[in-house]
């Protein structure tokens, strides 16, 4: 192995990410005493993030978990009664919302991949000196708030606006209507608008991980494939794409997970018929003030996402990827 052994004394969490098969250096110089102090360093480095997570993630999680099994009302107060019916009730009432959320999120993720992969590929291999400019353009939308950007889409897709008129005169809207994606000759308040909004808003989360995994691929590997009788298409299929899989997995997760829980796009670009589970949770928390049901729905969403993601990860088989 050419990989240098990590500094001695780095044990515990910091030393866990080593390559399989690399032999431990054994660190014969690791005298007693010196490593003792260094041994604590990783934990000190972890402390700020750990503390942050404990206060703002773990504690609220437990608080919400307990809320989800309470019963009562806002006037009388809520008490923990281990009432698990909130979960089954939520699933019965809002099953459609869950399905719709995952459907929209999955569609948006696939669209992001289809749009993002060529873009990331171009930035990584063909952009030359424009690489940084294009990368800045990819993240430029983040300089404006998520809400403002989605509102802008509302204007772009508005009834009678240029996009609707153009698509109408090209008879594209007839096709999408026939597919049930739009209706009444409009784009706003249709599933298409919501999916477009999600795709637009989460595209950078797909492009950046894809770019970083493509960019790490040694171009001599593509040349080696071409030299070994692979056509450009085969070289992509057999070498470039498999090596970019870690980026594909990271990008799809970073897109699918937040898109599943999103409610802004459905609220601004959709109608009540396009409500996603995020909208339902928001309504329970802020309008109905039924905190236990809202908390139960949040946990259901989390659990379902975890299941989907773990099945996906197993299918994608990321374990041996570089």
């Amino acid at each position, binding site marked *: *192995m050419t990989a240098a052994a990590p500094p001695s004394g780095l044990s515990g969490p910091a030393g866990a990410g080593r390559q399989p098969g690399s032999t431990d250096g054994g660190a014969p110089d690791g005298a007693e005493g010196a490593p003792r102090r260094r041994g604590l360093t990783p934990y000190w480095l972890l402390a700020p993030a750990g503390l942050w997570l404990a206060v703002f993630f773990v504690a609220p999680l437990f608080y919400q978990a307990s809320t989800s099994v309470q019963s009562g009302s806002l006037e009388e107060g809520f008490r923990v009664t281990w009432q698990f019916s909130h979960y089954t009730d939520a699933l019965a009432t809002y099953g459609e919302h869950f399905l719709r959320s995952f459907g929209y999120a999955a569609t948006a993720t696939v669209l992001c991949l289809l749009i993002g992969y060529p873009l990331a590929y171009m930035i990584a291999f063909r952009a030359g000196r424009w690489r940084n400019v294009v990368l800045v353009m990819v993240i430029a939308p983040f300089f404006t708030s998520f809400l403002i950007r989605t509102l802008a889409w509302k204007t772009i897709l508005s009834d009678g606006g240029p996009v609707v008129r153009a698509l109408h005169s090209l008879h594209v809207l007839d096709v999408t209507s026939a597919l049930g994606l739009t209706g009444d000759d409009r784009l706003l308040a249709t599933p298409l608008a919501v999916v477009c909004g999600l795709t637009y808003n989460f595209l950078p989360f797909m492009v950046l991980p894809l770019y970083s995994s493509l960019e790490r691929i040694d171009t*001599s590997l593509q*040349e080696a494939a071409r030299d*070994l009788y692979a056509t450009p298409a085969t070289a992509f299929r057999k070498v470039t794409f498999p090596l970019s899989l870690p980026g594909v997995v990271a990008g799809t997760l970073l897109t699918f997970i937040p898109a599943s829980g999103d409610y802004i796009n459905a609220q601004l670009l959709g109608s009540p018929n396009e409500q996603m589970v995020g909208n339902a949770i928001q309504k329970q928390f802020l309008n109905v003030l039924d905190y236990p049901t809202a908390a139960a729905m949040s946990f259901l969403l989390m659990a379902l996402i975890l299941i989907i993601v773990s099945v996906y990860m197993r299918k994608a088989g990321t374990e041996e990827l570089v």
Partner: protein
Amino acid sequence: MTLTLSGISKSFDDFTAVHPLDLTIPEGSFFALLGASGCGKTTTLRMIAGLEEPSAGRILLGDDDITRLPPHKRPVNTVFQNYALFPHLDIAENVAFGLRRRGIKNVRAQVAEMLDLVQLGDLARRRPRQLSGGQQQRVALARALINRPRVLLLDEPLGALDLKLRRQMQLELKRIQTEVGITFVHVTHDQEEAMTMADSVAVMYQGRVEQLGPPADLYENPRSTFVANFLGTSNLVEAKVLAGQDTAGTASAGLRVEVPGADGALRVPPDRCSAGDTEPGAMVLVGIRPEKIALVSAEEAATVPDGHNRLTGRIKDAGYLGVSWQYQVETPAGAELTVYAQNLERDSRLTAGAPVVLHWRPAHTFALDAAQDAAAGEETL
């Protein structure tokens, strides 16, 4: 099947990497392109592989023009500088890659045979990153050779290995080349590597071939200062051409030159003079390899054989290298000459400051055109 490069050149925007170049590489030969980094040798190799498109000229393999063929249609394979092994495939699949692309289904026997040739049979299921540099190098070789290419291109294949392993792989590569009989075109910046392995060497400098020939010819009779300095070391001294009175008319007529401040003339054989202007009075660079020079104390000047070229000087520095002594000798000509003397019986008078006579056989002398940089190709640290 002869590989012919005919007038091939490559320019990038405002930079010419390879000037029009003609090379003929006979079938089955071990051919080295030797030069410092940036001399155009790798670009030349990549044009043969099809990874770089020539700006002009033609590449012929036998009678077939392959100039415009994409890399996957050329019967040529490359061993890349950093091996470029596919990290997501195991060793056997790396080696089988080319066969599979050509639609060959049953590759197992061929892969096993090829891994045996490079002595890696037991590592077939490992991943490239689990192998040492030398093993990866062998995999890269096996991956290319399994396709039985007409020409195998090697781009600094030993550059990433340590010295001892490099020596070992040099012999190994030579053995494999002899065994498979495929034409090898080897790009390297290591003159020793080129000399030990290649049948013919083309020395490249600034996008041009400076000199081409068997290693011994290049070393013994360099035709330019770059070759003289890049292959080993040379002493180059400016000298003025004298009228050739005493040898005129005889069969051994050569050049007689005079080093300023030297006693008597130096003689250069006719076939070892590559200077353009050899009229009496013209300046040339006279060259002699350090190991060809004999060094005697000035008191022994009478022992110098008649007919030898000779210069007097004074030892500036005597360095002990174990296997030899290295002397720096100042001559009245102003030039400083390096002399290697085998560590046999050494005259104890040969110490710093001692006056000495340098002498050597005229047959070892060469003359180069003075209108070039005398320091070209010298190692700069």
